[in-house]
């Protein structure tokens, strides 16, 4: 082992051989030292740049109108001199000129630079060490993946739009073509019933009535599915809606079906912001629900009113029906979840799903409280119409 005092290391060789991009500047931004790695990265030679102003050596790319390398770099250096503290720059585009022998054209480069002062005994800045990292490859990769992503998104959007258009045509075909034979089934059974007249055997009449009911049932199911898909697709046009008019309109329309039921509207109903056609659908389904699930020995009763609540209006529909089983609470607003096992229990199972979707698409929400066996109160919260 060698002993004795250590020889002073060759700092020049250490600096120039350092594995990183280093440059030493004077406080007036002249280059006085550079690492070999720096020279390689900037395609320069030591003898060509030493002693020169850094911005003479590395001017902005004149073909890039957005070039701001010189400005940002100078600002950072000035800050370091002024404050005597290091300054880290963000990722900076700063194009580098090829040597004149190679045509002298600018090549795109991105850097992550940091500038640190070396202070003298008087606490003044003696030198600035400029350290940079070439991140061009990283930026290029990122940019390419963004471009690819955008392309992919554009392609998928196109596909999606085609699918939506297809679905629209599909549901229209369902409505048109599927409903036609149902109308025929209903119509022919009806005609047969009329032709047979009062002389018909009761079981024949019953069978024909069953055919009619089944056809009407499927027709409603088709209509509900269509309504649901249309709700999901169409953009609502929210305007001030007079709930009183909507609700009384629905009640009048239902007059036939409501025969056995008592419906009470607790006027006045507050106006809301919504889409009238959708609100009308919501009220119809809620009312339908309210009077449908009632024990046979009880007269169905429904009550409709509104409550003002801090910027929103709560539209309530209460009934005296069987109520919601606590186990069903989570499923009740899902499409096609029929909660009443009874085969004869009416309802396509999509009504409440339509109400929920419509409410949400009108920036509202739905909910209910229920006392099994005693009744339920369903509500929709909607934006209050501006006064």
């Amino acid at each position, binding site marked *: 082992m060698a002993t004795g005092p250590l020889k002073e290391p060759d700092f020049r060789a250490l600096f120039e051989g350092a594995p990183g991009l280093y440059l030493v500047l004077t406080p007036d931004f002249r280059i006085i030292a550079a690492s070999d790695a720096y020279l390689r990265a900037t395609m320069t030679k030591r003898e060509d740049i030493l002693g020169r102003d850094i911005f003479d050596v590395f001017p902005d790319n004149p073909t890039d109108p957005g070039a701001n390398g010189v400005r940002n770099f100078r600002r950072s250096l000035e800050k370091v001199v002024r404050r005597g503290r290091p300054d880290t720059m963000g990722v900076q585009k700063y194009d580098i000129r090829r040597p004149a022998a190679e045509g002298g054209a600018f090549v795109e480069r991105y850097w992550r630079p940091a500038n640190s002062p070396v202070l003298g005994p008087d606490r003044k800045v003696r030198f600035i060490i400029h350290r940079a990292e070439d991140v061009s490859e990283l930026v290029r990769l990122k940019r390419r993946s963004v471009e690819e992503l955008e392309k992919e998104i554009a392609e998928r959007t196109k596909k999606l739009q085609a699918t939506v258009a297809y679905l*629209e045509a599909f549901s*229209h075909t369902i*409505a*048109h073509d599927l*409903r*036609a*034979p*149902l*109308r*025929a089934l*209903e*119509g*022919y059974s*009806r*005609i047969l019933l009329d032709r047979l007249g009062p002389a018909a055997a009761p079981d024949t009449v019953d069978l024909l009535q069953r055919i*009619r009911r089944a056809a*009407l049932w499927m*027709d*409603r199911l088709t209509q509900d599915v*269509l309504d649901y898909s249309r709700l999901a697709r*169409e953009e609502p046009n929210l305007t001030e809606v007079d709930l009183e008019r909507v609700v009384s309109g629905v009640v009048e329309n239902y007059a036939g079906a409501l025969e056995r039921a008592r419906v009470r509207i607790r006027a006045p109903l507050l106006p809301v912001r919504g889409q009238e056609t959708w609100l009308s659908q919501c009220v119809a389904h809620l009312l339908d629900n309210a009077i449908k699930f009632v024990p046979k020995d009880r007269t169905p009763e429904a009550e409709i009113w509104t409550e003002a609540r801090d910027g929103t209006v709560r539209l309530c529909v209460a009934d005296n029906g069987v109520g919601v089983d606590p186990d069903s609470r989570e499923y009740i607003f899902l499409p096609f979840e029929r909660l009443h096992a009874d085969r004869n229990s009416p309802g396509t199972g999509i009504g409440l799903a339509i109400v929920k979707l419509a409410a949400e698409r009108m920036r509202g929400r739905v909910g209910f409280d229920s006392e099994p066996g005693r009744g339920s109160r369903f509500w929709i919260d909607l934006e209050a119409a501006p006064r």
Partner: protein
Amino acid sequence: MIPEGASILIADDNEDDRFLLTEAVRLAGISAPVRLVEDGRKAVEYLSGAGGYSDRTQFPMPSLVILDYKMPLKNGLEVLGWIRASELKRLPVLILSASSLPGDVERAYDLHVNAYLMKPSSLEDLTRLMRAVDAFWLGFNEYPRVS
């Protein structure tokens, strides 16, 4: 006023629907004769007295036209457009459709349809609808000079 011998022309491609419409017209007690054609092109031929429809005693000029929306060869809108561009342009025309895509109703009104009706699901409702159509268009409504 309704002209003497008012009649109705209905164009519908669905055979069942034509049968049920005929039945509904009968049940509604409509006295005006109803002629049926099975597509839009036949409707145009009928109205222009072309093809086999030249005999106006057998195929009278209708006072009211009811068109299905979706039909082969020429759909309801195309027939409506043809009528409005022809010398029969004032002829009252109704669309009776099983379904409507967003914008269908507006397109029909842009072509000056007189009413846009949805096909009801039951024969009972269809009968009610035909009775109303008859009462309004061949009863209360003031009839224009068509040609």
